[in-house]
């Protein structure tokens, strides 16, 4: 291994465009004059399976594989994939992670039943190792910019903030590699991601351990003052306050039971109830003891 060789890892699940993103990174690094080697593993990459890509660059790179504990940046396109790969990042390195959660089909046949245990978002995972961490809801940002499909560029923009490569190389790589007609939106998304520190407001801890949504959202409209905190913090966009200040449940099926809205409601106006599991007839007969 040559001295001065640096490494970067991209990870995600099949169908997310991890490979294209890694091509863009590699292209930008090449443009900046480095020797670049890239290698992806997508042998098992059916839709939803784990996909990752190693990139190493420097004056003279021998191997494309990033050893554990040496990556300068980990770009994770999905939450569980961030956790899976975080040990590859070196001390003081950076993690850019999309907080989107995609429960692997192999682990969970029915997303609604959430039978799989999916890791909760907990930045303490990164605390011990003093990692610089950016958690991003890339899809939300891209949607706001006009096209959810530019989400990966948001993430790449954030990655770029940790690498000292001239913007021009990134932009030309994007122009070259993204589908025609989406250059502008991808460039805009890239810039939004790069300017991350100026962007406002964060993203919640998702999905406490063992959650099994969708949960039931119970709103007390007498106590609710329509302050909008709940709808702003809901990671699943379940809630919205309408023009009259009335809180509405707009996507009842999406509630994962994270209870952020309940915990942050200043007016005790929201309660989240776990899904009611259907009671078997025999159980009902013996448990209730009559009426």
């Amino acid at each position, binding site marked *: 291994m040559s001295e001065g060789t640096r490494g970067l890892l991209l990870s995600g699940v099949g169908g997310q465009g991890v490979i294209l993103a890694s091509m863009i990174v590699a292209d930008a690094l090449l443009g900046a004059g480095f020797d670049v080697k890239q290698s992806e593993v997508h042998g098992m990459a059916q839709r939803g399976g784990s996909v990752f890509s190693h990139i190493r660059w420097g004056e003279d790179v021998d191997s494309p594989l990033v050893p554990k504990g040496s990556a300068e940046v980990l770009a994770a396109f999905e939450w569980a994939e961030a956790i899976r790969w975080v040990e590859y990042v070196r001390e003081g390195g950076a993690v850019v992670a999309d907080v989107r959660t995609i429960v692997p089909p192999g682990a969970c046949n029915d997303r609604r039943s959430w039978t799989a245990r999916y890791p909760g978002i907990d930045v303490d995972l990164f605390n011990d190792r003093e990692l610089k961490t950016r958690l991003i*809801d890339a899809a939300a940002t891209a949607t706001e910019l006009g096209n959810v499909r530019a989400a990966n560029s948001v993430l790449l923009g954030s990655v770029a903030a940790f690498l000292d490569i001239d913007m021009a190389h990134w932009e030309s790589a994007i122009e070259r590699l993204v589908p025609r007609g989406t250059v502008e939106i991808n460039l805009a998304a890239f810039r939004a991601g790069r300017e991350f520190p100026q962007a406002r*407001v964060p*993203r919640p801890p998702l999905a406490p351990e063992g959650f099994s949504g969708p949960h039931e959202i119970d709103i007390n409209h007498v106590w609710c*003052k329509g302050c909008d905190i709940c709808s702003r913090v809901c990671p699943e*966009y379940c809630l919205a306050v309408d023009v009259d200040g009335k809180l509405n449940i707009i996507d009842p099926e999406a509630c994962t039971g994270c209870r952020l809205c309940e915990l*942050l*409601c200043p*007016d*005790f106006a929201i309660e989240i109830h776990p899904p009611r599991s259907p009671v078997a007839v025999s159980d009902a007969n013996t448990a209730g003891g009559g009426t």
Partner: protein
Amino acid sequence: MADVKTYLREWAMPHVLCPGCAHGIVMRGFLAAIDQLQLDQDKVAVVAGIGCSSRIVGYIDFCTLHGTHGRAPAFASGLKLARPDLHVMVITGDGDGLAIGGNHLIHAARRNIDITVMLLNNSIYGMTGGQAAPTTPEGAVASTTPAGNTEPNFDACKLMIGAGASFVARVLAANPIEMSKVIADGVRHPGFSFIEIISDCPEYYGRYNKVGGGADMLTWMARRDAGVAVPLSEKKFVEHVPSSAVPLGMTTGVLERDIRPVFTGVRRQEPL
């Protein structure tokens, strides 16, 4: 865990606090802490002073004393000394606790009397209409500092550590789970425990300083904290920086914890 509403005087709801005021979140977090502790509801006494935060005691179903401006720690001291079996807690605000009541607060801390003080800091006098408080940051606009505050502001936790408080912590309303846990730790702590809870005042502070409504201030609050793990969402970003890496104005968590002799008044010593 019981429903926090078990501890609420439901008939008195909805409370008087403004829409988006984080004091309500603190109230909930406090009740969750009481529930975690599984205290006998009849043995919990909560004392408050005057101000928005102090109004909380009207809505929580314990023995509650809504006293005078700034004096809650003194009322609470009398209660605790006379009835050591009670769990005595104080809910106060930054103006209540640090301006008019500063003297009572520091002496309760110095004595290490076994009470828990929760100081809800919203950086302004809310109830009286947004005047500058001892916690209003320099430069911030209040109705009595229209050109920006020119006075330095208190760091309540440093003050309490200096005064001898044996448990000092700072938590954010934006992080209700940690808040409840730290409040519970404070109540468990033998001796004087002080918990500064960073709250907000969208109606005055938010409006005067153009930092938005309750949801905006809550997320803004979360971002100011270096030690908090991704507390909130505007569905875009959260930057988490290891707490040691970035100098920020506020450090959260338990800042002081020490076991010292607890003051129980001058009384006949029971044989051990």
